[in-house]
């Protein structure tokens, strides 16, 4: 097999663009092959660049803070689901590393600007559009876009700039620095951890990208063949659930297994879950399916809803349904879909929005928060709370900081039931009923997260007893995390993962066809580990302590109300975390072996 020689550049541009939006100055920096072979692209590359720029030092909303839009070697290739980008920064919600991913044409156009990543620092003097046209950078006024939701912002930009440009934009929540504001692109969001607030703090309402600098592929014929094969497999049973029902198919399954978080994680099932199932929605609503660019799966299920008396639509995922439904004890389908639409309107992460509101509802119930209107089960209250967050009014100012900050403000040990790890609200996987996932949540570098750890896969297997974890499960949790790190760096959609027979070998093969490198599966595993280590290193430098790798106290002291066999105590979790750290090659407490990484 031919291997590319060092002078050949395939798949990458081997450079990134640094833009200081205070002055508008841009500078190009080289990226070395050895760095790219370790960090690959996407999340890995973004984290690496943040380390180089010592982003761990700075307040994430300060002008010195950096935010990276990182593309990947597969972007622009014919491989299905590869049109993705990662947004990486220090999170204003957690203070730790945050990498959130989104799909579509922004990834394609962004890479065609001629760079593998865009690193943005500084703060523009006034609201601006950052325009990158083939590497030529300008800042244009965005005052006329202020206050507009993401969708309208994109529409206006498309009219003004034309179809050749693609846009990443923030909604009102990002402008108001809501700690869990998203960055949107074509209705999809880089959702978690508040990257929208980071962009907002830089006075950047939108980024417009255009370019014609395509990377070449090392073995075009081989790549096309592999892409065909992968697309073929993507039509098969591995992705059937996503195509036919979408992620919302989880609602009834999780409910039956008592792992559907309900009433701020007090229960694992919801008596009206059936109302929120895709089967129930399909029966009464028009639905259409949509795909991200370059995707053959098409998992996006869009439902019709009335908004302000007019027909409208909203994308529905399991996470939106769980967080805005059972978690707040709301079963009215229309209310939940409209709440999801509102989150899109403001540019809010639905998980953190629902998690924070559900927590506040419980605080009201327990008498720690004097907002009697904010009650579990009240759809009106849910909508009102979302408006207050998005507009930064009254209680919304506190809710906009997330459940951890709200608990700190309220005191009375409310932190014991704030549904967060490291400040990031838990997604819809009840940790007491899915205890390998509980470990994944506790140790996750960006906080409680189901996209960086796929440990629920272990819980859904016959290898473990999901409600009685053993330390041997730590190794399995590490494996799922490594797979996710590679997927988020290559980047391919996670919904494709079921089609691979030999995951790391196939990742190596795709990367080799694109770049001409000669990596093997073992080297891909090492790269995944290096990416996780780099994220951990970032966190250590930003002030991480071992005490952060845990779960809310209530989950470690109280059984699930409706499944009393689902008990996870502190000793078990601590033993799991210790086993995980050792499995990673770190010390028992979770520090990297190199003593220079200790704070």
């Amino acid at each position, binding site marked *: 097999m031919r291997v590319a020689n060092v002078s050949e550049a395939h798949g990458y541009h081997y450079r990134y663009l640094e833009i200081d939006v205070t002055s508008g100055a841009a500078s190009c920096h080289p990226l070395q092959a050895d760095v790219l072979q370790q960090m690959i692209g996407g999340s890995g590359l973004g984290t690496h660049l943040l380390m180089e720029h010592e982003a761990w030092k700075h307040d994430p909303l300060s002008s010195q803070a950096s935010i990276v839009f990182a593309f990947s070697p597969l972007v622009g290739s014919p491989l299905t689901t590869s049109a993705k980008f990662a947004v990486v920064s220090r999170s204003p919600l957690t203070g730790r590393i945050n990498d959130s991913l989104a799909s579509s044409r922004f990834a394609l156009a962004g890479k065609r600007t001629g760079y593998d990543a865009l690193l943005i620092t500084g703060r523009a003097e006034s609201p601006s559009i950052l325009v990158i046209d083939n590497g030529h950078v300008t800042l244009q006024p965005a005052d006329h876009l202020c206050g507009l939701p993401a969708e309208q912002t994109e529409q206006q930009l498309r009219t003004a700039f034309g179809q050749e440009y693609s846009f990443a934009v923030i909604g009102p929540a990002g402008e108001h620095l809501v700690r869990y504001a998203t960055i949107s692109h074509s209705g999809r969001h880089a959702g978690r951890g508040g990257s929208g607030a980071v962009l907002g703090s830089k006075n950047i309402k939108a980024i417009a990208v255009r370019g014609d600098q395509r990377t070449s592929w090392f073995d075009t014929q081989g790549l096309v063949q592999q892409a065909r094969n992968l697309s073929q497999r993507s039509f098969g*049973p*591995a992705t*059937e*659930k*996503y195509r*036919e*029902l979408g*992620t919302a*198919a*989880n609602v*009834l*399954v*999780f409910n*039956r*297994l*008592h792992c559907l978080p309900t009433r701020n994680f007090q229960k694992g099932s919801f008596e009206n879950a059936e109302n929120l199932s895709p*089967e129930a929605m399909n029966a009464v609503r028009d639905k259409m399916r949509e795909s991200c660019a370059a995707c053959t799966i098409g998992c996006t299920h869009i439902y019709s809803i009335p908004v302000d008396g007019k027909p409208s639509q909203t994308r529905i*995922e*399991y*996470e939106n349904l*769980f967080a805005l439904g059972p978690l707040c004890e709301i079963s009215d389908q229309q209310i939940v879909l409209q709440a999801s639409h509102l989150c899109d309107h403001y540019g809010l992460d639905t998980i953190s929005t629902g998690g924070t509101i559900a927590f506040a509802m419980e605080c009201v119930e327990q008498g720690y928060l004097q907002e009697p209107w904010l009650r579990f089960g009240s759809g009106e209250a849910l909508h009102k709370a979302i408006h207050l967050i998005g507009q930064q009014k009254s209680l919304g100012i506190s809710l906009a900081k997330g459940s951890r900050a709200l608990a700190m403000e309220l005191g009375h040990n409310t932190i014991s039931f704030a549904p967060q790890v490291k400040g990031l609200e838990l*997604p*819809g*996987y009840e940790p007491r009923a899915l205890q390998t996932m509980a470990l994944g949540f506790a140790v996750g570098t960006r906080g409680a997260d*189901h996209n960086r750890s*796929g440990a*629920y*896969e272990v819980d*859904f*297997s*016959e290898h473990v*007893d*999901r*409600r009685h974890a053993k330390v041997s499960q730590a190794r399995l949790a590490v494996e799922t995390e490594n797979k996710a790190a590679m997927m988020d760096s290559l980047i391919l959609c*996670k*919904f494709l*993962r*079921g089609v691979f027979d030999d995951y790391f070998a196939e990742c190596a093969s795709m990367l080799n066809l694109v770049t001409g490198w000669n990596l093997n599966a073992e080297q891909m595993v090492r790269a995944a580990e290096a990416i996780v280590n780099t994220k951990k290193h970032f966190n250590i430098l930003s002030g991480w302590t071992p005490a952060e790798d845990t779960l809310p106290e209530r989950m470690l002291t109280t059984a699930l109300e409706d499944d009393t*066999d689902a008990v996870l105590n502190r000793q078990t979790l601590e033993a799991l975390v210790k086993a995980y750290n050792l499995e990673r090659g770190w010390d028992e407490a979770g520090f990297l072996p190199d003593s220079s990484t200790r704070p």
Partner: protein
Amino acid sequence: MKIKIEYYGIPRQRVGIASEVYEFDQEEMEIHDVILAVARKHPEFQRNCMAGDRLNQHLTVNLNGTRFYQTENGTARDGDALLILSMDAGG
């Protein structure tokens, strides 16, 4: 003995019902044999959810909402509920 079969996600789409009860003469049965009985009754399930005489690798079985038996090696007894669902719980 009576076993309740609950279908979720794609299996539910193929079979067209949420659940049904099967009656067998034995006191207990291998989960695998229960799955074969389901496949015999529902041609759509046989066509779309089975790979040969086993569930396809993207589906799994759970007994009474507790343990998973992906390899179908387990025993079902009178009054048990057998859940047939997708292996992939990604959300």
